[in-house]
């Protein structure tokens, strides 16, 4: 069977599975729609959280980015896993004990203020929308490459599928669908990584092969270690050393921090820990989520290193002078057709050649690394089909999770708690579904007309989460003195500070976006950590000079600090 038929079969089968699960676990009430009836076991919840977390961007792009920037890529690896430690230790158990549905619920109650709730709702909706903008594009790209349809058609198909199960199923449907999606995506990611690790180093476990000695085609050791070879190649071709990177230390520090604290402030991640039966389960759920995420995130850098060596060697050949275009492998020609690889024979020698600097003849898009790996390594056709299904699983699960938070924020936080408090359960559910539908249409719009700055927008989402929601939640749990005025002032200044810094360098004056103009050498990607510190300082300062926190709120803070008496997640 050819790749085309296999892709239809595997993708078709996985879609049938997701839709089947969505129908089987249809939500009947608002509570089931929002939090799956509080009845999801921790391991399952961890798996679903992992699928929710790992978007098309991590599945398709992350290994490619790390492959091109080496050590600098560590900011994403540590940043997007380290946040779970904060979630497990400082947030999940307490928010579960608090026992309501959403982040704005907590901020509104803890800071006894409608204004604080509204600020939180606005942050949550904005963060989710910036996030989802990139997701539908991911679906479209995968469809267009493997099903040979237009990107736009791919986006429409993706919209229809997400709409079907997110809108009908609600949280319960999504949770179980995401469990299935996790299994598909992790299998699809690991199979090519294991294949390529065995081929290059003889180790089945890519994390070990990453540091191992390279082997030749016959399986005999060559005496050269993968990473030494990679550093050697980078030196020879004029790139920064793979294991050292080129970003300044302070920038690496701040970006890592902004991503970690941003992760712990993302509403669609936090809401996950409301869906487990007990406080105990909230703690361990975060642990399971990180286990399932780490399986992929520790494989990513290994895959990056393998494909970097493979790519340079196939393009430049054994002599490192380039290979003749006619004898170049098929994957180069296949991807040339998509425009994601371009060859410009600058010295007219008929050979392709990849290097840093002016003699470089190859333009290679980072995003193709994962999708192209099975082809570069000459793996069987079913593996290529599997990777397509994995990319789709990643994109769909993340979109569905985000849509749910958008719909909850609109129907529950904005309408029920703000604009129309007397709304009935049934009406609320209807508005939730309408909001999901609106979210899908918007995401689809951005999928078809991509803004061209998806990466920048995602950085904004993390920076804003780190500098607005994260400090408000942490102070709400660990301090009894931070009051309404302090929290609102902190959120607003943190948010405005980070947002204006990012907007200035990314949109207003992009030509000034370089280290000498940055505050302390911190890039816009990392400014969220600084914004977070600003938020904490402002909140404590303002709280000192304004009215103390009322006694009933102090009692509430005391009661969320221990697990006993948690009960089910409830509305009121």
């Amino acid at each position: 069977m050819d790749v085309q038929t296999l892709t239809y079969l595997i993708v078709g089968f996985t879609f049938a599975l997701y839709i089947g699960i969505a129908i089987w676990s249809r939500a009947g009430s608002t509570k089931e729609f929002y939090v799956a009836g509080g009845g999801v076991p921790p391991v399952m919840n961890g798996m679903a959280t992992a699928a929710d977390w790992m978007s098309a961007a991590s599945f398709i792009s992350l290994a490619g980015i790390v492959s091109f920037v080496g050590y600098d890529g560590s900011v994403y690896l540590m940043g997007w896993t380290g946040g779970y430690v904060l979630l497990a230790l400082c947030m999940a158990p307490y928010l579960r004990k608090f026992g309501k549905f959403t982040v704005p619920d907590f901020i509104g109650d803890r800071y006894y203020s409608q204004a604080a709730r509204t600020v939180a709702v606005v942050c949550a909706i904005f963060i989710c929308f910036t996030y989802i903008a990139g997701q539908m594009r991911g679906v479209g790209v995968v469809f267009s490459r493997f099903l040979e349809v237009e990107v736009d058609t791919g986006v429409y198909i993706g919209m229809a599928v997400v709409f079907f199960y997110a809108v009908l199923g609600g949280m319960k449907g999504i949770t179980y669908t995401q469990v299935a999606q996790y299994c598909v995506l992790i299998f699809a990611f690991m199979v090519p990584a294991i294949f390529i690790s065995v081929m290059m180093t003889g180790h089945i476990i890519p994390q070990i092969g990453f540091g191992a000695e390279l082997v030749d085609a016959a399986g005999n050791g060559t005496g050269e270690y993968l990473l030494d070879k990679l550093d050697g190649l980078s030196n020879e071709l004029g790139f920064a050393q793979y294991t050292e990177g080129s970003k300044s230390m302070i920038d690496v520090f701040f970006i890592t921090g902004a991503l970690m604290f941003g992760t712990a402030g993302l509403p669609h991640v936090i809401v996950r820990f409301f869906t487990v039966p007990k406080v105990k389960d909230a703690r361990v759920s975060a642990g399971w989520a990180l286990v399932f995420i780490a399986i992929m995130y520790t494989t990513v850098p290994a895959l990056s290193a393998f494909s970097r060596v493979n790519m340079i060697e196939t393009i430049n050949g054994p002599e490192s002078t380039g290979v003749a275009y006619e004898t170049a492998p098929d994957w180069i020609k296949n991807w040339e057709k998509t425009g994601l690889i371009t060859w410009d024979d600058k010295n007219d020698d008929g050979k392709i050649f990849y290097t840093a600097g002016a003699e470089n003849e190859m333009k290679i898009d980072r995003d193709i690394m994962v999708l192209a790996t099975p082809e570069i390594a000459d793996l069987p056709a079913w593996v290529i089909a599997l990777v397509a299904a994995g990319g789709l699983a990643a994109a769909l699960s993340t979109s569905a999770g985000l849509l749910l938070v958008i719909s909850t924020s609109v129907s529950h936080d904005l309408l029920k708690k703000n604009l129309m408090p007397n709304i009935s359960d049934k009406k609320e559910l209807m508005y939730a579904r309408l909001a999901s539908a609106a979210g899908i249409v918007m995401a689809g719009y951005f999928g078809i007309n991509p803004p061209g700055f998806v990466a920048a927008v995602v950085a904004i989402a993390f920076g804003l989460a780190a500098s607005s929601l994260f400090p408000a939640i942490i102070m709400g749990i660990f301090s009894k003195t931070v009051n309404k005025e302090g929290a609102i002032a902190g959120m607003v200044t943190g948010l405005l500070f980070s947002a204006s810094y990012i907007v200035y360098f990314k949109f207003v004056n992009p030509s000034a976006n370089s280290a000498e103009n940055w505050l302390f050498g911190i890039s816009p990607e990392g400014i969220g950590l600084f914004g977070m510190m600003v938020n904490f300082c402002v909140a404590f300062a303002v709280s000192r000079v304004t009215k103390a926190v009322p006694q009933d709120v102090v009692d509430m803070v005391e009661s969320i600090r221990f697990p006993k008496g948690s009960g089910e997640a409830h509305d009121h």
Partner: protein
Amino acid sequence: MSFESNEKAEGYWRENLRLVLGLLVIWAAVSFGCGILLVDVLNEIHFMGFKLGFWFAQQGSMYVFVALIFVYVAKANALDKKYGVHED
């Protein structure tokens, strides 16, 4: 109030904070410390074919993160039992 006395409530919270802070120190040490601030020093050391600082940044810190959460879960559950504030 689910604690027998105010002292117990404060004791529980103090122990809980000590546990969380201790684990967060390790969390910061492996990522911000070994993976970023000390990376050049540690890169002089070789470990299973890796430069050690690079290994912490791209592998080691993530393994430690996972371990930290499970240590926290075990210790926090034990603490709840000790003070009788666990769920039924």
